[in-house]
């Protein structure tokens, strides 16, 4: 088995190694990791702590992230945002009635806004603060700017939540190479570490989300067969369950926000103690002088969380069914996420799969480690081995049709990237526009699915009902992000796609936030844009030269001349500071290599098929 091909004997010179990082943006804690000398390691803060609590506090003069913010949370709960991941890609109606959030939400349509001392903040902006802190940590540890990052998301995140995570990374100034599903990241860390082959289940119970993924590892290919989960179930819920039990035991009235935070912290400590001990004391003082002093036994903890544990097993069964496998077909079960330290979870998983789960990697770090390995590969570092990842989309994508029903276009667990087209027609004579409502979910009714976006196809020439042929194409890229386009087939009218994301930020809003954050940091937005254009142009030049070095025989003399000319134009402008001219030249180079790139890809495919024929003869 050669899953991990160790790099060439001589290491590449240091300057050739690109700075690649993997980020686990967690509900409770976040981490950043990198691959150093062929080994993936988590980068600790200056005090040696690997975790960064995912807590952001908008203080009088600064924005604090991590332990400091966490420590001040009880006294400043309105301005201290924790578990913001639960709010990503969500609307106010999703959190209404959930009294767990001590924040001041602002009424309004679409994306959630929180009133803080620093003004209104969206979950995307709050997450960006966490990412900025991790980026700073990595840049100081790796002594330079980051060349590429992989950011992980729960496998069961919907499109809106993924898009929000992408936006947060953009705001944080991170060059994101890929969004990677958390259980898949863990599988990479395990698979490459243990050189395993077979069918694996990754059971990932994080602070606020639960994922189950079934993967097959074959000769360096990680193929996700099915994924399922619960985007609103995690260790947090066990804390709250424990918290409510303490309230009942102590017969306490509803607590103030400060007391609630305090007691919640005690509940979390007790939960962690119960991973080792048979009983945990919960002792604390309230602001009004009240006292809490109860002891929770492991048996009672198991009993009061029975329903929560059961909620993890339903997605497991659904994932197995979608993968067309039985629990007995699974060769190994990987546990990921701090919450899987709870003994009742381990017992339930062991019972469900009939085998003891694998726990040899730190469940808190394994996702960041896997992300770092993927980032190291995508950025093109040479010590990254030869392996490939084939992931899936977790939830079906569809369109609203007559009667509020959903027409599924892309089914759940389709391997990405995926393109699927469907034809629709007009319902009335002379209809010139068509509204499209994109939804995600498994239910038949639109109202039971997640609304992703609405857009309109305008300018359809008037025809009798049913005569127009409107092709709607759903394209899901390797990040699991959807784009939708529509076209009237007879006339070629393209959709004037004004996507109004249901719970996301528009491109305009993102641009404005970027401007603001530049202004705030004293950065020059122009300089930043120029730097980005240079990086892009340089990548195009390098990639084109490398393509010419290996496949120049695919070009005739005229084509070669055109490419060389376009290449020279870009290189000439790289030294200057005309961003627009540089971007235009890079675009021209891209256009000049279109046919070349096609032929190269065809050559790659032909080599695969030729190789297969050789195999068949042997």
């Amino acid at each position, binding site marked *: 088995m050669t899953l991990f091909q160790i790099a060439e004997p001589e290491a590449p010179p240091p300057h050739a190694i690109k700075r690649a990082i993997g980020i686990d943006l967690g509900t409770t804690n976040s981490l950043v990791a990198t691959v150093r000398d062929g080994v993936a390691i988590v980068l600790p803060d200056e005090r040696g702590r690997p975790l960064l609590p995912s807590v952001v506090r908008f203080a009088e003069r600064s924005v604090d992230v991590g332990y400091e913010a966490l420590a001040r949370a009880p006294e400043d709960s309105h301005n201290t945002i924790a578990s913001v991941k639960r709010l990503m890609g969500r609307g106010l109606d999703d959190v209404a009635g959930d009294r767990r959030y001590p924040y001041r939400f602002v009424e309004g349509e679409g994306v959630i806004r929180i009133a803080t001392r620093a003004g209104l903040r969206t979950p995307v902006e709050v997450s960006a603060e966490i990412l900025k802190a991790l980026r700073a940590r990595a840049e100081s540890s790796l002594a330079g700017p980051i060349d590429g990052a992989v950011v992980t998301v729960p496998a069961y995140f919907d499109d809106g939540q993924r898009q929000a995570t992408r936006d947060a990374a953009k705001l944080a100034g991170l060059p994101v*190479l*890929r969004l990677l599903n958390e259980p898949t990241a863990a599988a990479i860390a395990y698979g490459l570490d243990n050189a395993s082959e077979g069918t694996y289940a990754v059971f990932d119970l994080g602070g606020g989300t639960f994922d189950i993924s079934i993967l097959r590892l074959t000769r360096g*290919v990680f193929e996700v067969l099915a994924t399922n989960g619960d985007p609103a179930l995690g260790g947090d819920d066990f804390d709250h369950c424990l918290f409510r039990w303490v309230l009942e035991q102590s017969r306490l009235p509803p607590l103030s926000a400060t007391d609630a935070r305090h007691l919640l912290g005690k509940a979390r400590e007790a939960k962690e103690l119960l991973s080792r001990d048979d009983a945990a004391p919960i002792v604390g003082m309230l602001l009004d002088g009240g006292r809490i002093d109860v002891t929770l036994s492991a048996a009672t903890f198991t009993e009061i969380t029975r329903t929560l544990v059961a909620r993890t097993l339903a997605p497991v069964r659904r994932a197995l069914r979608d993968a067309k496998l039985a629990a007995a077909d699974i060769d190994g079960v990987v546990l990921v996420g701090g919450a899987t330290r709870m003994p009742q979870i381990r017992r339930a998983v062991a019972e469900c799969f009939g085998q003891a789960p694998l726990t040899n990697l730190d469940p808190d770090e394994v996702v960041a480690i896997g992300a770092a390995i993927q980032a190291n590969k*995508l950025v093109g570092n040479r010590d990254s081995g030869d392996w490939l990842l084939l992931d899936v989309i977790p939830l079906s994508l569809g369109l609203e049709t007559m009667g509020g029903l959903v027409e599924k276009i892309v089914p759940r667990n389709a391997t990405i*990237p*995926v393109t699927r087209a469907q034809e629709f027609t007009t319902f009335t004579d002379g209809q010139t526009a068509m509204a499209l409502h994109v939804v995600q979910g498994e239910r038949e009714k639109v109202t039971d699915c997640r609304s992703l976006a609405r857009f309109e196809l305008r300018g359809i020439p008037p025809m009798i009902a049913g005569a127009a042929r409107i092709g709607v194409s759903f394209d899901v890229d390797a990040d699991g992000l959807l784009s939708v386009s529509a076209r009237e087939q007879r006339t070629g009218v393209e959709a004037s796609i004004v996507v109004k994301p249901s719970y996301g930020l528009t491109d305009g809003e993102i641009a404005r936030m970027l401007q603001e954050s530049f202004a705030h940091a004293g950065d020059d937005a122009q300089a930043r844009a120029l730097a980005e254009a240079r990086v892009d142009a340089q990548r195009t030049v390098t990639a084109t030269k490398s393509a010419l070095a290996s496949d120049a025989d695919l070009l005739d003399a005229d084509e070669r001349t055109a490419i060389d000319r376009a290449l020279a134009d870009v290189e000439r402008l790289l030294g200057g500071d005309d961003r627009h001219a540089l971007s235009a030249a890079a675009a021209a180079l*891209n*256009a000049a290599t279109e046919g070349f790139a096609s032929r190269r890809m065809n050559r790659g*495919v032909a080599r*695969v098929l030729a190789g297969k024929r050789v195999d068949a003869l042997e």
Partner: protein
Amino acid sequence: MIDFSRNHFELFGLPLRYPIDGRVLEQTYRALQGAVHPDRYAGATDTEKRLALQASARVNEAYRTLRDPVARAEYLLSLHHIDATAEDDMRLPVAFLSRQIERREAMEEAGAARDLRALSMLIDDVRGEAVDLAAEVARLLDDGDLNAARARVREWRFLVKVADDCDALRVADVDR
């Protein structure tokens, strides 16, 4: 770009016939993705990235179709300009349909009564019939009797749907 004029069989270097060696199909799939997947082009030009995305999606689509025996039969027929999926002409034999209606009723009853054993038996029964149909479709396609194959493929597709719905009921019941 991968030549779009090539059909799924050609893309995978397979002869244009119904039977397929699943192992060869899987291996070819992984090898093709190894050549075209966007992760292989993370440092490439924007043009190459776009082409990789399209090619990889195309390979996924071909693989999805070829590995699913019903979809593969439908696809093979479509290459002969026979549409086995058109919804506006879903006429199926009366005897077949009435058998499925009976099954659906039994299925709903078993679902309502949470009778897992009855549901499992129903699934086995439907699958047994599907296996027979699969063999017949394979024979008809091999004989070149395409119109007869089309009729059987439609019944097969229908049965798969019944089995899936039945299975969904079973899993939903376990979840309760």
